[in-house]
């Protein structure tokens, strides 16, 4: 970590470790759960940041992957609790297995969506990813077996071997470990050969192809990894709320994840974390003060896009460094 950005990243990490613990000790269960929400939303945005920030792929459909993670957790718990089977398979309430399935399923779906969408560029890519997410959204709404429009409750939180996942601070711990793991993974990937190729696919596709590396394969792989991280966040989100519904896949959700990435600072490792903290806190406290919080969020977002393009990290840490 270098310079001011390194200090900010360190401060964010310390805050994520200390503040919820202090809230827990003070008995503020509501705020511990709010912290879990921040961390999960940040994780979803860390996933999108790999595609959008580092890879330059403006995906407007990442809510689809968020929702896939959520529905895997929800459907799995639904069957396990009722003692029924899913297509003849018995299901689980073990989080690690649910995460694995979420991530793999999202990966397969992202492979299909990406393989079609990445044949196009620019505004086509934006609209097509949006449209595919909408397709899954309407599928979730019109498929009645899992609640359709009303969603699907998870009556009992899924379990983790050796941990009491009902305990808010323990659940927070699980979430924050997942976030740190994905941040570390992103840092490793971006420092690797693959990351260098992804960076070049973003900055100069021609140069990458001329070097003998097919940009399409690099982009598609990054898109899939990005979707997988967002799906993991979705699975955690379902457990946090004890509920999944099609709204997890709505295009507003896709927009929100994108807004968090931008608000924090595009293509900065800890940008999504800063963005998620700002977003959830604004949502919670402005939402508490006024019913019209959407209006203020809109104005803040408009101001950020027009006047502060580097987001929070850009404002505090200056221009991104690449070495």
């Amino acid at each position, binding site marked *: 970590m270098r310079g001011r950005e390194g200090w900010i990243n360190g401060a964010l990490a310390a805050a994520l470790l200390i503040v919820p613990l202090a809230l827990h000790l003070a008995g503020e269960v509501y705020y511990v759960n709010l912290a879990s929400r921040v961390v999960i939303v940040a994780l979803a945005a860390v996933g999108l940041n790999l595609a959008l920030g580092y890879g330059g792929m403006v995906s407007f459909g990442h809510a689809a992957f968020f929702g896939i993670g959520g529905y895997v957790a929800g459907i799995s718990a639904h069957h396990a609790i009722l003692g029924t089977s899913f297509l003849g398979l018995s299901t689980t309430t073990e989080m690690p297995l649910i995460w694995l399935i979420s991530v793999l399923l999202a990966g397969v779906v992202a492979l299909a969506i990406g393989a079609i969408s990445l044949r196009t560029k620019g505004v*086509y890519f*934006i609209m097509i990813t*949006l449209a595919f997410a909408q397709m899954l959204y309407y599928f979730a709404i019109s498929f009645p077996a899992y609640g359709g429009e009303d969603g699907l409750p998870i009556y009992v939180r899924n379990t983790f071997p050796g941990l009491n996942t009902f305990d808010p601070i323990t659940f927070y711990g699980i979430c924050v470990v997942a976030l740190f793991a994905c941040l570390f993974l992103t840092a490793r990937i971006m420092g690797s050969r693959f990351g260098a190729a992804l960076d070049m696919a973003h900055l100069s596709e021609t140069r990458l192809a001329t070097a003998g590396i097919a940009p399409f394969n690099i982009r598609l792989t990054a898109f899939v990894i990005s979707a997988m991280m967002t799906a993991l966040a979705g699975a955690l989100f379902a457990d946090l709320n004890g509920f999944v519904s099609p709204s997890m896949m709505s295009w507003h959700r896709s927009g929100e994840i994108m807004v968090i990435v931008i608000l924090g600072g595009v293509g900065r490792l800890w940008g999504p974390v800063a963005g998620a903290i700002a977003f959830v806190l604004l949502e919670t406290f402005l939402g508490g003060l006024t019913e019209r919080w959407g209006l203020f969020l809109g*104005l803040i*977002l408009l101001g950020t*896009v027009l006047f502060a393009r580097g987001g929070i990290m850009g404002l505090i840490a200056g221009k991104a460094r690449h070495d």
Partner: protein
Amino acid sequence: MPLSLIIEQALNGLQLGVTLFLMASGLTLVFGVMGLINLAHGSLYMVGAFVTAWVSASVGSFWIGLGAGIMAAAAVGALVEVAVIRRLYARDHLDQVLATFALILIFSEGTRWLFGSQPLWLDVPDLLSGAVTLPGGSPYPVFRLAIIAMGALVALGLYLMISRTRLGMRIRAGEADREMIGALGVDIATLYTLVFALGAALAGLAGAMVGALQSVQVGMGEPVLILAFVVIVIGGIGSVKGALIGAILVGVTDTMGRILLPSAFGLFMDASSATAVGSALASMLIYLLMALVLALKPQGLFPVHARA
């Protein structure tokens, strides 16, 4: 399945297609001429519907309300273009998406603030409130036929405007080469505002017409907006002709799929699962159509020119 039902649904599909065309033509013009992707287009649709409903109720005339709705949408469009949108032309698509997403939030909340959270209701004008009898004997509302006819008129009008008028010539020049129209001495800023307001007026018209079929409420523009995106992706972004053909294709596919697929599945499934699977698949049908078109023609059916 009775013939009259199929005809009825085909007409409904056509009517949806026409509504989508009104939305998609504005989107595609704005993209073709200014290179801008505008998510807030659905908000202009909403503005048209709300103003029409409110003025109609206050004055007691649908037609005055409709005129007010279209003019309000155009005026709000022009205002937004001058205040925000024109700062975005030089930006990348990501910035455009975010800024116009912000506009949606502002519009939705602003509308809720002005008109309240309750939906408004807009009555079909007396002149168009009857029904005609379709071959096969079932009645069909005249108003829906009127929407189809109006869409055909707008398509014709747009065609004539773009191919025959000075404004149309400038629009075509702008699509071909943005620097060139500047060199020709055309006032680009005014041209852009006009094009944006035109697109807004069409969206407002669509909103007003659909508002008379459904309720007028915040967020009503968003599902239509996303369908309109599918339309212009299928048709080729920037092409008005592509928007027309894509819109009809999407409208008819969606409507017919919803009625035909469940009965098709009913042939080899029990009725309740056929309805479930059929309607779930029907809701995905137009997106599958889009995927198919893109797999064959990544630039859409009527590619305009390579502008990413």
